C-alpha cells in the first residue's frame, strides 16, 4: 500500500510543473542512435561530353568508399526527386530533405585530352549549409579512380571530422595453390581490392611485408636463400636488396620506425631470438633485448619513443612495452590466452593484437597500458592486424578451416562493427596498410 502510494506521488510529481525555469528550457541528451548516415551522391555533372562516363564512375566509387566504412548509407538514384544538372545552381534542399538525405555530394567533371578536373561540394541538407568549401582535384584520366578516392577522403573528413583512408594501398602476400604447397608472392592493391599488382614472383616464400611511413618502400622477409632474410623493396621500381644478412642467423619480422630510417626486427642466433634495431642502410645495429625467451613482432609507437612486442619470457606469449632504445620491458597483457603480433595504432592510443584462447583466434585492441581490452573478431584463425592510416579500421588475415581452407583479407571497424572481406584474385594474407597518399 505504501509503495503504491509512493508511486502515486511520483506520478503526480512527474505531471506537476517543474520548478520555474530561468532563461531557456534546458535538457540533456545522453543517448542517441548509431546508424549509417544517409547521403546522396548524384552523378557528377559533365562539363563536356567525354566526361560523362567518368563522371558516373567517379560518383560510384565515392559512394562505394563511403558505404564501405559502415558509417554511411547511400540513397539510390531512383529515389531522387530532382537531380543535379548544374554544379553552380542553388541546391533544392527540400528535394533532398524529402528523401531524408542528410548529406549531399555534388560535383562536376571536365576533361581536356588526358587531363581530368573534378570539382565537388558537400552539403548538410537539413541545415542547408555547405560543409567546408568546394574543392578541386586535377589529374589524368588514367588516375580517375584515385581521384575518386581523394574525393571520398575529403567527404569523409568533412562529415566525420577525422581523416579518411580511401586513397591508400595494401601490400600483402598473395597465395595460390593448395594449403600444403602454396606459392606466395608480394602484391599490392588499392585499399578496396582493386588494381592488384604483383611485386615479386612466386618462386620464393615471402612473409610479413611492411610499408614505410612514406609508402614508397616495403620491408619483408624472404626465404630466397633458404633462410629467412629481411629485404627492402622499392615499390616504384620493384628493385630490392637484402637488409640484414648475418651468417648463422635468421632475421624476420621487420618494421619501420616512424622516421622511415630505422628498422626494428627479430634476429635469431643460436636458438635465441631477440630484438634489434638498425638504420635503413643496414648499419648501426643495436640489440634491444637480451633474454632467453623469444622476443619478436616489434612495433614502434607513433612518436618513436616506445616499442611493443611479444615475448614468452613469462612462460606464455604476452605483450610487452619497452623504450625504443631498449631497457626494462613492461608486460601489458594479462588476460587469459596468448597474445601476439601487436601493432601500435597511428593515433597512439590503442594496440591491436592477435589473441588465441580456447582454440579460437581473435583480433582485439587494448589501451597502451593493457586496459580496456576488447576482442573484435573470433574465428578458426584470425591474425596479423594492420591499422588503417586514420586508426579507425583494422585489416587482418582470416583463414578457413580444413584442407581446402584459404586465407583471405578482412577489415573491421575498431568498434567491432562492419566486418568485411576484401576481394582479392587469389588467397591473401599478411596485409600491411600504407599511409594516406
Amino acid at each position, binding site marked *: 500500500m*505504501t509503495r503504491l*502510494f*509512493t508511486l502515486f*506521488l511520483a506520478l*503526480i*510529481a*512527474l*505531471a*506537476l*510543473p*517543474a*520548478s*520555474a*525555469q530561468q*532563461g*531557456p*528550457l*534546458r*535538457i*540533456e*541528451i*545522453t*543517448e*542517441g*542512435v*548509431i*546508424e*549509417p*548516415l544517409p547521403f546522396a551522391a548524384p552523378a557528377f555533372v559533365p562539363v563536356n561530353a567525354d566526361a560523362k562516363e567518368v563522371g558516373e564512375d567517379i560518383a560510384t566509387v565515392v559512394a562505394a568508399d563511403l558505404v564501405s566504412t559502415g*558509417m*554511411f548509407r547511400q540513397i539510390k538514384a531512383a529515389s531522387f*526527386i530532382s537531380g543535379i544538372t548544374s554544379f553552380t545552381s542553388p541546391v533544392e*534542399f*527540400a*528535394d533532398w*530533405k*524529402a528523401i*531524408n538525405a*542528410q548529406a549531399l555530394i555534388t560535383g562536376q567533371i571536365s576533361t581536356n585530352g588526358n587531363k581530368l578536373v573534378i570539382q565537388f561540394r558537400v552539403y*548538410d541538407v*537539413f*541545415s*542547408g549549409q555547405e*560543409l567546408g568549401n568546394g574543392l578541386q582535384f586535377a589529374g589524368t584520366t588514367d588516375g580517375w579512380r584515385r581521384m575518386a578516392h581523394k574525393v571520398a577522403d575529403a567527404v569523409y573528413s568533412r*562529415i*566525420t*571530422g*577525422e581523416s579518411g583512408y580511401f586513397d591508400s594501398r595494401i601490400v600483402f602476400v598473395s597465395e595460390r595453390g593448395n594449403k600444403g604447397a602454396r606459392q606466395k608472392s608480394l602484391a599490392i592493391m588499392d585499399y578496396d581490392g582493386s588494381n592488384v599488382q604483383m611485386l615479386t614472383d612466386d618462386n620464393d616464400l615471402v612473409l610479413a611485408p611492411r610499408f614505410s611511413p612514406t609508402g614508397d618502400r616495403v620491408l619483408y622477409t624472404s626465404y630466397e636463400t633458404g633462410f629467412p632474410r629481411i629485404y627492402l623493396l622499392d615499390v616504384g621500381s620493384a628493385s630490392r636488396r637484402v637488409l640484414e644478412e648475418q651468417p648463422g642467423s635468421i632475421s624476420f619480422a621487420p618494421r619501420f620506425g616512424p622516421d622511415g630510417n630505422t628498422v626494428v626486427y627479430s634476429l635469431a642466433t643460436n636458438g635465441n631470438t631477440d630484438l634489434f634495431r638498425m638504420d635503413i642502410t643496414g648499419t648501426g645495429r643495436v640489440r634491444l633485448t637480451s633474454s632467453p625467451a623469444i622476443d619478436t613482432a616489434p612495433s614502434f609507437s607513433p612518436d618513436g619513443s616506445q616499442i611493443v612486442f611479444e615475448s614468452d619470457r613469462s612462460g606464455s606469449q604476452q605483450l610487452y612495452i619497452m623504450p625504443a632504445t631498449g631497457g626494462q620491458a613492461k608486460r601489458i597483457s594479462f588476460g587469459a590466452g596468448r597474445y601476439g603480433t601487436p601493432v601500435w595504432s597511428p593515433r597512439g592510443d590503442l594496440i591491436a593484437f592477435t589473441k588465441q584462447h580456447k582454440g579460437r583466434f581473435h583480433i582485439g585492441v587494448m589501451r597502451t597500458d593493457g586496459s*580496456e581490452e*576488447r576482442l573484435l573478431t573470433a574465428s578458426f584463425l584470425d591474425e596479423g592486424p594492420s591499422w588503417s592510416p586514420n586508426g*579507425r579500421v583494422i585489416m587482418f588475415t582470416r583463414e578457413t578451416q580444413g584442407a581446402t581452407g584459404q586465407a583471405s583479407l578482412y577489415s573491421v571497424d*575498431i*568498434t567491432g562493427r562492419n566486418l568485411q572481406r576484401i576481394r582479392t584474385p587469389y588467397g591473401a594474407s599478411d596485409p600491411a596498410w600504407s599511409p594516406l597518399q
Partner: protein
Amino acid sequence: MNVGTYISGAIHIGLIGWLLVGDVFRSDPPEPEVTDVSVISATEFDAMFASSAAPEIDINLAQMPAPPAEDVLDQPIQLSQDVAPELTDVADPDLPQEQETMPDVTGLQVLPEAEVSLDVPTMAMPSFDAGPDIKIDNNPESKPRDAPRVAPVPFLRPDQDVAIDNAVTQAAAEVEAPEVVVEESQDAAPEEATTEIVTEAEKPAGAPTSVPVPKLRPQPKDDIAAPEPSPETPKPDTTSSALAAALAEAEAVDEVPATAEEPQIPLGPPMTLAEQESLRVAVSGCWNTGSLSSAALRVTVVVAVQMAETGKPVSTTIRLVSSTGGEGEAITQAYEAARRAILRCGAKGYDLPQEKFGQWRDIEMTFNPEKMRIK
C-alpha cells in the same frame, strides 16, 4: 502567465506541506493509540519504554507534568508482550522518530524552567523605543522613506495638480494614447477571432455569418471557411500530393522565424518533467553518432535553438553555446551532428504544449555522448 505560476506554486506548496505535515511517508501512524499507557502503572511503563522509547515519548508529550521522564528512560526494558506487536510495526520507521522526539523531552523539561516571564518585558522594550523615534516628525526627511515605494505615482499627481492648465490640453492629446494601447490589446482580439475561426472550421455549416474582423491572418487551414472572405488572397494549397506536403514542411522550417518574433509570447505554466522527457526522447531519436569520429564522440556540446510556435526549430537560430572535451574539428562535427538531430526530428514539429510556448521557445540542449563513445 502569473496565474499559472501561482497555481503551480500553490500546488507545490500544498504538496510539500502535505508531505511534511501529513505523515505521508509513515507507514504506520498508530502511536497516538499508546495514550493508553498513561493509565499503565509505573513498572509497566518502565518496561514498555525500555523496549522502545519512541512511542512513549509521545506519551510524555501528552503528560506535561511528568518530570521524572529521564529517570524513567534510564530504567531497564521490561515490556509486556501485549505492546510489543505495536512497537514492532513501528519499529523501523520509528528509528528516526526516536531521535526526533528525544530532544522534545528535554525541551519539555526546560520549558517549565524557562517560564519565567521576565524575558517578555525585555522583548517589548525595544518596540516601544522604536515608537517614539517614529513620532519625531521634525525631520521631513522621514517621508522619503515612503517615496521609494510609491514614488512614481504620487509625483505624477502633484505635477498635474500644480502644473498650469496649458499642459492639460496636451494631456488630452495623451488621452488618445490609451486608445493606442487599446489597439495593442486588439492583438488579443484576433486571438479570439482565431478561436472563433477554428470553431467555424470545425462546424462549416454554421460559419457563414459575416465576420468583419478576420482579415488579419490568412490561415491555410480555412479551406471550409474560405467562401466567406471572398477577397482572400490566393492560397498555395498544393498539398494534394505527399511530396508537395513534404516539401512544404521542409520549407516551413525556414519560414517560421518571421512569425515567431512578432507576437507577445505567453509564458504559460512551467513544463512538466514528462513534457521535458518527451522532448528529450524525441531529439535523441535523431541524434546519430554513427558517423562521428572518436574525437568528436568525446565532445559535449550545448546547442541553443529557438522554436517556432508550431514546435519546429528555427534553423537560423541554432548556435553552439559551449563545448567541452575536445577542440577544433571535433567540436565542429559534434555540433553539426547535434544540429542535424534538432532539425531532422523537428521537421514536422515537436510535440510540445501550445499553451506553454513561452516556456519552450528558447531551448538549450546539451548533447553528452559519454554513453555513445567508442570504448
